[in-house]
Structures are given as structure tokens and as C-alpha cells.
């Protein structure tokens, strides 16, 4: 299992791996929005939590199709399924590797990018907390979409359509948490909801993803 994680991380940082792809996309979104909306700090500060969350979500979506497609193409998915490791575990590890290469850099970069969007001072810490709690759910839910579309040529569009509805609750509670935090309101409810969504997806979705892979490999 650890070998699989190390392999995926190593693949991600080698040439053509896709590490930093999400981060670059996130940076592009965050720098372009002020040009589109105008430089007025008040408006930017108001929309910053939402923009940062949407940016993080789309950046995450960008690299989802790589989770299983590459392993499917070179045949290692077949071999992993027949190997003495539970497929649910393989899925969880793949989600973890995806999160480390995509979600974690976003969490680290968000406070810096928040400055570009005039994110209020007190909201930075909430931005980090909400992304830290929410992005694992994005990666795990993504494995389900990736598992359903594995083996499809150009399944990327279908993958986005399948996964986006599942991302909505995370987006709502994540952005709400930052907004409330910025305004000094009570943050307990969105915090608990966000944590609950993540805990539930991490616990349940790997089973669904593994089942989808088994069906797709037939």
C-alpha cells in the first residue's frame, strides 16, 4: 500500500506527471478574476471565498481523469486488481495520492492567493481550515467518477458531469465556512457539515469506486 502511494507520488513529480497542474490553474483563476470583476477591494473581498473555492474545485477536477486512466492504458490496473491488495485500499491510496499532489498544494497556496483577492485578514485561517477539511472529499468523490469512466476514450466530459453534482455540498459548506469566519459569525454548523461530508465520503465512496472498476474491467 505504501509502495503504491510512493509510486503514484513519484509518477506525479516525474516528467509529464501533472503535479502542479492544479496549482497553476488555481493561480490563473485567482489572477484573472480581479481583471474581470474590477479592482474594487470591497467587491473582491465579498466574492473571494466563493472564487477561491470554485477555483480549488475546478483545479481538482482537472486532474481527476488521470487517477485510473493511465493505469488502465498501460495495463497495470488489471494487474493491481489481480494483486493481493484489496481494491478498496487501492482506491483509497489513489485518492490520497491525488489529494497530496492536488489538494494539499491548494491548501498551502490559498492564503497567498487570498491576498490577490483581498480576502479579509481574519478569513485566511478559515480558508485554510475549510480547504483542508473539504478537499479530501473532492479527491475521494473524484475516484468514483474516474472509476465509472475508466476505459472510456475521452471520458473527461462525462467525468465532470458525473462528479460536479457531488461537489456541490462541499462547495456550499466550504465557502459558507469562510464567509462566516470572515464576518466573525458562528462557524460551528458549516464546519461540522463540511467535516461530516468528508468523513462520510472517505468512509463510503472507496467501496463504490472499487465496485465500478470491477464492472468496468469485465
Amino acid at each position, binding site marked *: 500500500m505504501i*509502495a503504491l502511494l510512493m*509510486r503514484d507520488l513519484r509518477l506525479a513529480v516525474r516528467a*509529464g506527471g501533472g503535479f502542479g497542474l492544479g496549482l497553476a490553474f488555481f493561480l490563473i483563476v485567482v489572477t484573472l478574476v480581479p481583471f474581470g470583476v474590477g479592482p474594487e477591494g470591497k467587491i473582491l473581498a465579498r466574492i473571494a471565498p466563493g472564487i477561491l473555492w470554485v477555483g480549488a474545485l475546478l483545479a481538482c477536477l482537472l486532474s481527476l481523469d488521470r487517477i485510473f486512466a493511465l493505469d488502465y492504458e*498501460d495495463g497495470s490496473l*488489471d494487474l*493491481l486488481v*489481480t494483486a493481493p491488495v484489496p481494491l478498496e485500499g487501492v482506491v483509497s491510496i489513489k485518492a490520497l495520492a491525488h489529494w497530496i499532489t492536488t489538494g494539499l498544494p491548494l491548501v498551502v497556496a490559498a492564503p497567498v492567493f487570498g491576498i490577490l483577492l483581498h480576502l479579509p485578514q481574519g478569513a485566511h485561517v478559515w480558508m485554510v481550515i475549510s480547504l483542508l477539511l473539504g478537499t479530501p472529499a473532492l479527491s475521494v468523490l473524484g475516484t468514483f467518477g474516474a472509476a465509472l469512466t475508466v476505459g472510456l476514450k475521452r471520458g473527461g466530459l462525462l467525468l465532470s458531469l458525473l462528479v460536479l453534482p457531488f461537489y456541490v455540498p462541499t462547495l456550499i459548506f466550504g465557502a459558507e465556512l469562510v464567509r462566516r469566519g470572515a464576518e466573525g459569525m458562528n462557524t460551528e454548523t458549516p464546519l461540522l457539515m463540511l467535516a461530516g461530508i468528508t468523513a462520510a465520503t472517505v468512509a463510503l465512496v472507496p467501496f463504490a469506486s472499487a465496485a465500478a472498476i470491477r464492472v468496468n474491467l469485465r
Partner: protein
Amino acid sequence: MSMLSVEGFAVSRGGLPVLEGLSFSLDAGHALVLRGPNGVGKTTLLRTLAGLQPALAGTVSMPPESMAYAAHSDGLKSTLTVRENLGFWASIYATSDIEPALERMNLQSLETRPAHSLSAGQKRRLGLARLLVTGRPIWVLDEPTVSLDTASVALFAEAVRGHLAGGGAALIATHIDLGLNEASVLDLTPFKAKTPEEGGMQGAFDEAFL
């Protein structure tokens, strides 16, 4: 002692039955070569035995966790080196020593090369070296000698022989002569499934939509 035995086996591809009424058994120290024209269902049979798809009918009995499967593609990561590729599979199968496998498949001189710089035959040899690090007694091999030169085929036959001598067994689908004279041959053509119109069994029709 029979390691793998198959009774009344039927397999389907894309919801259509391709093979039926297949029974054979494989003893420790023996190899069975599957032959038959393209499309007869060799790959489907091996995938079913490997547990990648359900059988239509019949039973398979073998010890648990005893099979190593090698497909058409080798499952190599092109940006990892030969050593890293092999080491990964060794740790997945909880074995650690990859040196004998590198040596047997004549890959030592290539071990620091990334897999994308290998030739097709060298990749194939690396794919077969993966079998050696699994430590599994039953090898299920699908066209193992594709793109191998004569010397490498001999090398591969030698590896299979060594595996059989160590109490292993091998089930090999191939078109060419491996030089494994001791292996028995099973031609799959007589087991070709009848179509439903001829009174053959119905496949799981809905599978075509999955």
C-alpha cells in the same frame, strides 16, 4: 497433486458466450499451453480465471492467493526505471528480492534505465520478470512471447522450466512454439460455445450494457 482444476467452465465476452464445457486440471510442476485461432476466447478464459470477470458457469478450484496473471500489456510505468518498476510489484506481492528476477531475465545492465527508453522486447522481459517477483505458484500468461527474439524466448522458456521445477505450474496462451516440450497442449476450438440459435446457453444479456 492438482493445483488448478476447472470443471464445466463457460466464459463470455461482451455478454456473448465464447467457450463452454471446458474442463482441465493442472498439476504442480506442469505447464499447459492453450491454443486456438484468434477470437476463440483464450484471453477471456485467462481473464476469467484471474478473477477479472465472472464465469458464466462451472467451478474453478485452486489454493487462495496462488495465481499471478500477466496480460498483453506489461503494466509498466514509462517514467520509472526498470528497478523501480520491478521493486513496486515486489512490494505489492510482499517479496523484496528483485535481484534474481533481474538476473534471470537478463536485465541487470538496464536496471537504471527508465522504462520508456526500453525496446518492446526489453519491456516484455521486464513484464515477465514481474512474474518472478510475485512468488506465486500458478502463472497465468497471455501471449507471453510477443515481441521477444529467439534468445529471449529461450530465456523465457528457461524461466518457466525453473518455475515448474520449483513446484510451480503455468497456464500459457500462445501461438508460437515455446520449446517447452514437456508442456501439454489444449486446443480450445472444440469448446467453442454454440450460439443460442443452435441451442447454446444464453449469455448474461444485460452485461452488454454495463
